């Protein structure tokens, strides 16, 4: 009850349009670009390539290509397509290096090299690594893969069954295959690696299975493990030592990765690294988030549960923890902090700040100092009622007690839902406008926590959280965000959560896809939708852009519904096996009218 006034206050900010039916764009004529912003480490290679998951180390998903503009994007048309042969959720994105495109499918994690220089894009090779079938049933949220990373003539990616592989791009030969995760404990791997100075950095999935999350580096040449850091447990295991200097004093006590848990429970405490990585070459820091603590039922793990639901900066050479910050201490809402950390320099309060911008599951957008872990500002970017704000003196959220689930009580209408204000769908940043382009969810939930026993290889959850649409009659919105002020500039409301990522381009066109299968282009300054195309399946992947051998600009996107939203929530579009027919999910009851399962790459050009 007490939450209501706040709720309405947020509503007035977030809901400029009440229409629940497909996207009305809200525009803001007064917008002037945020000047003085820059990507921390812009790409050094050719602008027409897309060699890393997010395009660059800063996770900007920005391209210097500008052939496609707000004036001509209406002429965009499908240039060619490719079927991946797999029907599960296609999160992630292709890579383009030279005249070759590299794709990785969901399980069984087939990789393809497509020759862009030959008409019809024939395969140069196809690699099908051995990949244990058992992994299919142990992956929490569909059998997704978020893509490969390219470096030094190789592509690197993870297999669902817990292996990391390297493929020689010239021959397609599998160079090495290293077991990193333990499937018997419920560990799988779904994230996209990042390659830093000859090290392939990878992390685990399985936060719903009672695993103990880690991040590790492998030698790109040999596939041998160089370092591995757990995120929970004693200081030595989580690589906390002399260099550890968290910004907030309360975070500095020894062994808090173990002591902020009831005895030993950290061993099943989650804190996996299934999201996106970024890297600052100047500071030599790798940034990653960690997942929810396990189990969801907080009564079984009183304490802050460090470093679950946290943002962590580590030395790229050694894995040492340099700083850490927990957006949601003692998370009881399943608010993982694995979302991407975008590294940009921003003018704030008259000073140029080395910033890290993070749109958390918990609904707050954090603008932080990426050298120190200081929270510069934290503002809600979606409707929320679980917290009344973040105290900048401590970095901690003020919690609304009416919206905190605990065992034995069903708590209704908590916003955002466990899918978060944003989930894996990565945002993009444009230095041309100084804005962030953020795909968001607008869902709330009822949460019922219950006691759960740890049985290895089975889910360790202890909660049920059915979801309902958030306030305002829409379930997702693609927004433009000013991280120097913490304000939304414009938003395009969508009938479904926007579960695909964003792409920003120099032509001032931003791209994103929707669960109901629309691929859209919008004006980066106004949010006006300039073009859309109905692709073959719902979009949960991320657009990329590249220059083809013919010198033209292309934009590519996966169509293949799935992931948590498609597989678990929708139900009716998840039944992609003939022996599995599901009743409609109440959260997105009519999504299956608009799309069906698929596994296609769509490529567009003028």
């Amino acid at each position, binding site marked *: 009850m007490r939450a209501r006034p706040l709720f309405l206050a947020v509503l007035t900010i977030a809901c400029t349009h009440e229409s629940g039916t497909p996207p009305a764009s809200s525009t803001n004529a007064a917008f002037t670009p945020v000047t003085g912003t820059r990507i921390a480490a812009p790409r050094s290679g050719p602008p027409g390539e897309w060699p890393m998951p997010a395009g660059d180390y800063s996770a900007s998903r920005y391209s210097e290509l500008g052939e496609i503009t707000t004036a001509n994007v209406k002429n965009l048309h499908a240039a060619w397509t490719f079927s991946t042969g797999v029907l599960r959720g296609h999160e992630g994105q292709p890579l383009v290096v030279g005249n070759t495109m590299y794709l990785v499918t969901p399980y069984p994690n087939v990789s393809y090299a497509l020759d862009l220089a030959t008409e019809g894009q024939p395969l140069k090779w196809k690699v099908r690594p051995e990949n244990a079938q058992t992994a299919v*049933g142990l992956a929490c949220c569909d059998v997704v893969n978020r893509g490969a990373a390219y470096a030094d003539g190789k592509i690197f990616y993870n297999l669902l069954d817990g292996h990391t592989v390297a493929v020689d791009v010239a021959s397609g030969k599998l160079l090495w295959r290293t077991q990193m995760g333990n499937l018997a404990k419920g560990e799988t791997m779904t994230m996209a690696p990042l390659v830093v100075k000859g090290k392939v950095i990878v992390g685990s999935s399985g936060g719903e299975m009672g695993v103990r999350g880690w991040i590790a580096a492998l030698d790109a040449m040999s596939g041998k493990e160089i370092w591995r850091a757990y995120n929970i447990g004693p200081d030595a295991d989580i690589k906390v030592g002399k260099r550890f200097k968290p910004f907030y004093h309360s975070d500095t006590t020894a062994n808090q990765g173990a002591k902020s848990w009831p005895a030993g429970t950290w061993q099943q405490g989650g804190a996996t690294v299934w999201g996106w990585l970024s890297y600052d070459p100047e500071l030599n820091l790798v940034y990653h988030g960690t997942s929810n603590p396990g189990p969801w039922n907080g009564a079984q793990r009183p304490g802050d549960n460090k470093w679950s639901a946290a943002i962590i900066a580590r030395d790229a050479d050694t894995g040492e923890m340099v700083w850490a910050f927990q957006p949601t201490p003692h998370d009881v809402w399943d608010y993982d902090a694995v979302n991407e950390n975008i590294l940009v320099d921003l003018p704030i309060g008259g000073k140029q700040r080395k910033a890290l911008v993070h749109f958390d599951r918990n609904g707050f957008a954090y603008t932080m100092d990426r050298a120190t872990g200081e929270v510069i500002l934290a503002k809600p970017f979606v409707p929320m009622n679980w917290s009344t704000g973040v105290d900048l003196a401590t970095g901690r959220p003020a919690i609304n007690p009416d919206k905190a689930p605990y065992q034995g009580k069903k708590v209704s209408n908590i916003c955002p839902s466990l899918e978060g204000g944003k989930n894996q769908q990565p945002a993009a940043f444009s230095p041309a406008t100084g804005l962030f382009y953020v795909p968001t969810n607008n869902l709330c939930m009822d949460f019922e926590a219950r006691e759960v026993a740890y049985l290895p290889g*089975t889910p360790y*959850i202890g*909660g049920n959280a*059915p*979801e309902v649409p958030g306030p305002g009659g829409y379930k997702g919105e693609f927004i433009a965000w000013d991280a120097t002020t913490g304000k939304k500039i414009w938003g395009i409301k969508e009938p479904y959560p926007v579960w695909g990522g964003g792409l920003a381009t120099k032509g001032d066109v931003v791209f994103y896809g929707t669960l109901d299968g629309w691929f859209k282009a919008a004006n980066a300054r106004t949010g006006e939708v300039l073009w859309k195309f109905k692709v073959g399946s719902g979009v949960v992947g991320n657009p990329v852009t590249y220059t083809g051998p013919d010198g033209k600009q292309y934009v590519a996107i996966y169509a293949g519904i799935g992931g948590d939203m498609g597989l678990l929530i929708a139900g*009716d579009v998840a039944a992609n096996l003939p022996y599995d027919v599901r*009743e409609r999910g*109440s*959260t997105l009851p009519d999504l299956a009218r608009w799309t069906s399962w698929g596994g296609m790459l769509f490529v567009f050009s003028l």
Partner: protein
Amino acid sequence: MNSCRSSAAMLLLALMPLQACTRDSRAAEVPRAPQQGAGGDLAGRFVSHQEHIQPAGVKPFTGLQLVNPHEGDAKAAAMGGKLFVAYNCVDCHGADGSGAMGPSLADNRWHFGGTAPEVFESIYQGRPEGMPAWGSLISEDQVWMLVTYVRSLSKGKDVTTENFGGKTVERTGH
């Protein structure tokens, strides 16, 4: 607690909330711990799958002779429903078996067969895409209760046609 280290005690723990919250007198009859070598004589048996073709003259697999002692028993099904939560089946297969990480159990479609012996085998010895083998952990009788519950889920349901009206199922994402 030392005893927590044994899987037997772990399963006991799993059953505690079950026993605390039920008034069903049958609760006391739920076997409390896995029996050593429970169902050992069943290990290695086969049952036929729907997609198996039997060449002429070959006898069906012997597993079909397994008999569910609780067939059609609503109380056993209800107890199976509690075991379904206690053993974390619910978080894979969804509330009321409506499907989540694992396939739906409420659609009358069976990858490995839907007769009682076939469902018994799926639970007892596991299945390739991540279904754990429970035969070495829980008693044969508990497996049969689970079989009884699981087979009750799709009774009377018609999921053949989706007309986008009517009933929906509450699902939890992760």
